[in-house]
C-alpha cells in the first residue's frame, strides 16, 4: 500500500484540479474575511470563529477535487493497471481514501491559514479559549475525513468520471442545503410574542403563544441527531458557532468513516472493472 500512496501523492501534487481548489480556498477564505472586516472591523477579535466560518466552501472545493481526482482512475483505466501489478482491491480503496482525505485537509488548512495570518497581521486575536478552538478544529477535521469517505465511495464505485463529478457535486449541495434547512427548523422558538387589541382600542401584550412552526419531542431529537451525525451538519454548526454535542461529533465522524469505508471496500471488491 505504501507504493500506492506514493503514486497517489505524486499524482496529487501534479493534479491541476487540486491546485485550482487550493487557490480557490485561499481566495474565498481571504475575500470572506476581508469583506467581514470591512463591514465589522471587530470581527478580527474573533479569528477562531472566522477561520471556521468557511467550512461549507471547503466541503464544496474538497468535493470537486475528490471527484476529479478519483474519476481519472476510472477514465484512464489506471485501476486495472494497479490490479495487474498485484495490488489488492482493499489497498487501492484505502489509498484512495487517504489521498482524498489528505487533499481535503490541505484545502481546509490553506483556508484556515490565510484567515489566521491575515487576521493576525491586522492586529486580531483568536477570541476563544484554546481548548474550545482545538475541539472545533478537531470536529472540522473529522467531518472532512468522514465526507472524504463518502466521496471515495462514490468515486470508486461509479465508472464514469463525469457521472462521479455530477453525483458528488449534487450530493454535496444536497447535504449542505439539508443541514442548513435542519438548523433553520431547529432555530424556531417554542413560543412567539402576541398582541391583542382591547375594546378601548389599546394594544396590549398577551401571554406568549405556542409557535406552530416549532418542532418538539421525538422529531426534534431525531433532527438534532441527524445534523450531529452528518458531516455537513457538523461543518454547518461550526460555521454558525453552534455545537450541541461537540464532544460526540468526532465519534460520529469516526462512525460515518467506518461505515462508508466498510461498505465501499466490500462493494469494490466485487465490482466488475470493465
Amino acid at each position: 500500500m505504501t507504493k500506492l500512496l506514493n503514486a497517489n501523492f505524486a499524482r496529487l501534487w501534479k493534479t491541476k484540479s487540486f491546485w485550482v481548489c487550493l487557490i480557490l480556498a485561499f481566495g474565498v477564505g481571504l475575500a470572506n474575511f476581508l469583506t467581514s472586516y470591512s463591514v465589522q472591523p471587530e470581527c478580527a477579535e474573533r479569528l477562531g470563529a472566522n477561520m471556521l466560518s468557511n467550512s461549507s466552501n471547503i466541503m464544496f472545493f474538497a468535493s470537486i477535487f475528490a471527484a476529479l481526482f478519483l474519476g481519472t482512475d476510472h477514465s484512464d483505466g489506471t485501476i486495472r493497471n494497479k490490479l495487474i501489478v498485484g495490488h489488492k482491491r482493499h489497498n487501492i480503496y484505502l489509498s484512495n481514501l487517504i489521498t482524498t482525505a489528505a487533499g481535503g485537509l490541505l484545502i481546509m488548512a490553506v483556508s484556515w491559514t490565510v484567515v489566521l495570518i491575515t487576521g493576525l497581521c491586522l492586529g486580531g486575536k483568536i477570541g476563544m479559549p484554546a481548548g474550545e478552538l482545538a475541539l472545533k478544529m478537531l470536529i472540522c477535521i473529522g467531518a472532512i475525513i468522514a465526507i472524504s469517505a463518502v466521496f471515495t465511495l462514490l468515486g470508486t464505485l461509479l465508472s464514469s468520471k463525469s457521472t462521479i463529478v455530477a453525483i458528488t457535486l449534487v450530493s454535496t449541495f444536497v447535504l449542505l442545503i439539508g443541514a442548513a434547512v435542519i438548523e433553520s427548523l431547529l432555530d424556531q422558538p417554542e413560543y412567539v410574542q402576541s398582541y391583542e387589541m382591547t375594546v378601548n382600542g389599546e394594544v396590549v401584550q398577551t401571554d406568549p403563544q405556542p409557535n406552530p412552526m416549532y418542532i418538539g419531542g421525538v422529531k426534534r431529537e431525531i433532527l438534532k441527531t441527524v445534523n450531529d451525525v452528518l458531516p455537513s451538519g457538523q461543518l454547518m454548526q461550526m460555521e454558525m458557532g453552534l455545537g450541541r454535542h461537540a464532544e460526540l461529533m468526532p465519534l460520529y465522524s469516526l462512525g460515518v468513516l467506518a461505515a462508508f469505508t466498510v461498505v465501499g471496500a466490500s462493494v469494490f471488491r466485487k465490482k466488475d472493472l470493465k
Partner: protein
Amino acid sequence: MARVFGANMFRLRKSRLFRWAVVLTALATAGSVLLGCLAINGETSEYALENRALSGAPFVMIASAATVILFLGTDNSERTVRNKIIIGGRRGGIYAANMLTGIVIGCSITAAWLVGGLAGVPILGWWKMSVSEAAVYIASSMASAVAVSAAAAPVGMLIQSRSGAVVVGLTAAFALLFCASGVYTRLGGQKEIMTADNIDGELQFTLTENPNYVGGIKRAAYELALSANPLGSSIALSNCDLKDPAAGLAGAGFMTVFISSLGAAVFRRKDLR
C-alpha cells in the same frame, strides 16, 4: 438540422441518463411532497398542495442543467461533433439541434417534477390556486427550464472535457442560484414596517420607513438581474410568489435567445480537435 435533431432524439430515447433523471425527479418530488404532508400538524385543508409541490423548483432546474451538460457533453468526449461536420452538417445547425435537444430534456424533467408533485393530491387535494394562475405557474416553470437548458447547452458543447463541463456548469448553477436567492431576499422587504414602542406601559404602534427597503433605480436593477438570471424565477416559483410572471417570461425568453446566439457564435469558431 432536422437530421441531427432526429439523431439526438433517437439517442435521447435510449439514454439511461435521461430516463434516470426523469424517474428520479418524479420520485424525489413525490417523496418530498408526501414527507411534507406527513409532517403537517392539524387540519390539512389549511395547506395548499402547490406550496409543497413547487418548493423544489431550484433543484429541478439544477438537475436539468446537469442532465443537459452530461448528455450534450458526450458529443465532445466521443468526438461525434466532428463526424457530424464531416458528413455535411453545418455548425449552426448542429448547435441549434443540440440546443433544442437540451430544451426537450429540461422540459421533460420539469414535467416529471410537476407530475411527481401530484402525489400529495389524496392528502391535500388539488392545487388551491385558480386554473389561470396555475397555467401561469406552469408556463413560468417551463420558461425557466428552457432558459436553464439554453444556458447549459453551450457549457456542454464548448468545454472539451465532459467532467470539466459538469464542474463548470454545476458551479455556475449554484452561484447563480445563490445570487438569485440573495437578490430575491433583498427585494422582499416591505417599504414600511410597524414598530412598537412601550410608552408608559402602553404599546404604541407606528408605521416607519424600512431602512433595508431597496427602492428606485437600485430596485429596478435588482428586478432586471432577477429576471435575467436563468434561475431567478425558480426562487419565486418555490415560494409560490410570482409577482410579475410577464417579466419572468420575457427575461427567460431574452436570455434563451441571447445565450443561444452567443453560444452559436463561439461554437462556429471553436477548434474541434
